[in-house]
């Protein structure tokens, strides 16, 4: 069941010049939240921000009763979230959307680019709780983009690429040696990040007949299935990314890959 609630800001800390973790405390016991789900946050006091903004749920702490978000500043909405402090409260609609499907015990690879790593932490945790030890490949332009490594290392083996080679392998995520097909042992890939990256990963998966789930970030007005603005073309027609996604199996998408 979806909820609409005022959360208190529990913590807000910068990871680098434009990325931060916003942790919010729920007013009552949190419902169960599945990896891949997101929340629609209301931005207060901003003349240029009219609609809510969607963010993946990065982590959940059922003991502290908090959820956290991994957010990158890209415009006015995210900039104003960055300014929130413990005195502020914020309204959220959550948990929204479907979630990544948790497989039987197989080898899985997670691939995150940019803010695409956001939903992968909760996914790693769930996989680990299901006795699957995932490997995560994180890509960025340079080492300052590679964040939350310690967090991911709790649940995963972490691989890294940077475009300038300042951390991990040099190049794009898709150029990482893990993809040298003869060695590739993963049965499933979960990915989230820039569309071009996801499509490249999807192409690799398709070619090699590997299951692949992607988490999409279409622009949304409502976030809960009422407006039909967030659609993606699928083999069964247009589907709402907010209710029938954000996670899709690439088999169902009409991507030209």
């Amino acid at each position: 069941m979806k909820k609409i609630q005022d959360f208190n800001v529990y913590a807000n800390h910068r990871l680098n010049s434009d990325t931060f973790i916003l942790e919010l405390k729920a007013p009552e016991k949190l419902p169960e939240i599945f990896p891949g789900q997101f929340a629609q946050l209301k931005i207060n006091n901003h003349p240029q921000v009219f609609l809510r903004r969607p963010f993946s749920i990065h982590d959940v702490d059922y003991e502290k009763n908090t959820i956290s978000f991994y957010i990158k500043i890209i415009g006015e909405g995210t900039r104003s979230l960055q300014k929130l402090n413990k005195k502020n409260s914020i309204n959220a609609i959550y948990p929204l959307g479907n979630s990544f499907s948790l497989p039987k015990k197989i080898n899985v690879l997670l691939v995150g680019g940019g803010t695409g790593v956001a939903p992968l932490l909760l996914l790693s945790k769930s996989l680990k709780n299901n006795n699957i030890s995932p490997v995560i490949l994180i890509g960025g332009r340079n080492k300052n983009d590679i964040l939350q490594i310690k967090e991911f290392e709790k649940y995963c083996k972490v691989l890294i690429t940077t475009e300038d080679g300042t951390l991990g392998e040099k190049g794009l995520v898709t150029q990482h040696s893990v993809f040298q097909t003869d060695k590739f042992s993963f049965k499933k890939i979960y990915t989230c990040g820039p569309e071009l990256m996801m499509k490249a990963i999807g192409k690799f998966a398709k070619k090699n007949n590997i299951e692949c789930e992607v988490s999409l970030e279409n622009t949304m007005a409502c976030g809960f299935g009422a407006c039909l603005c967030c659609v993606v073309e699928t083999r069964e027609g247009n589907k709402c990314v907010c209710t029938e996604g954000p996670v899709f199996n690439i088999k169902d998408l009409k991507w030209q890959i």
Partner: protein
Amino acid sequence: MADLKIKIQKLELKNPVMTASGTFGYGEEYTDFFDISKLGGIIVKGITINPREGNPYPRMAETASGMLNAVGLQNKGVDYFIKNIYPEIKNYDTNIIVNINGSTIEEYIQVAEKINELDKIPAIELNISCPNVKEGGMAFGTNCSSAMAVTEAVRKVYSKTLIVKLSPNVTEITEIAKAVEEAGADSISLINTLLGMAINAETRKPVLSTITGGLSGPAVKPVALRMVWQVYNSVKIPVIGLGGIMNASDVIEFILAGASAIQVGTANFIDPQITVKIIDGIEEYLNKHKIDSITELIGALEV
């Protein structure tokens, strides 16, 4: 306690607050948030004779105090609605009103005939104002003779309350209003969205796949209020007002301008519980001002 009940001809509403077509799905999307039977009515999303995929993504652009949409009447068609959705929603304790659309008069008639058979649907809203479809839609609503023709045709086959929803993208809204009144409409709802456009200066591309789209939200409220007032002063049938309503005070403004009832659209996206808050707010206003019945305020603007 103030009385919120109102009537649109034969249609009885427990309060004047309805939800606007295309912003409230079939109601089910909101049941987690509040008891939707509290509403005066729900206008379900636009229905066409055949299934429609709608327009390609992107379909939405945020604008100053508003948004553009280019959904383009995505729906599974009237038969799917009757078979799969109607049974689910027909027992809600509120008025379920179907918003019907077509690209030809014939299509409007076909949908209206089928909806006419549904016991629990007390009214239809004839959408002759959708800016997001190539054929039909807004074209019918921007010209007196076509607005009249489609209304007359539907009137012949539809026996219950017939609401006609007008487009604001016209020079003289009162002429269109008078034409549909003459053609047999029981009520007029307005406004649908204003035709607008958004451009991304960085990519140099339009934001919407369809280039232009429909503007809604508080940005359009002054235009909507003006048109409701003009139409109220030129027809005898009840007017339903909408466009940018965000709170109870906005509702009072529309009612003073001449609306018998109102619809809340875009605001539902920002606060899915907004309609109940608005209903409470209207009641507070009436109590504060010692007004017994909301009907006393209809068109009561002091000019």
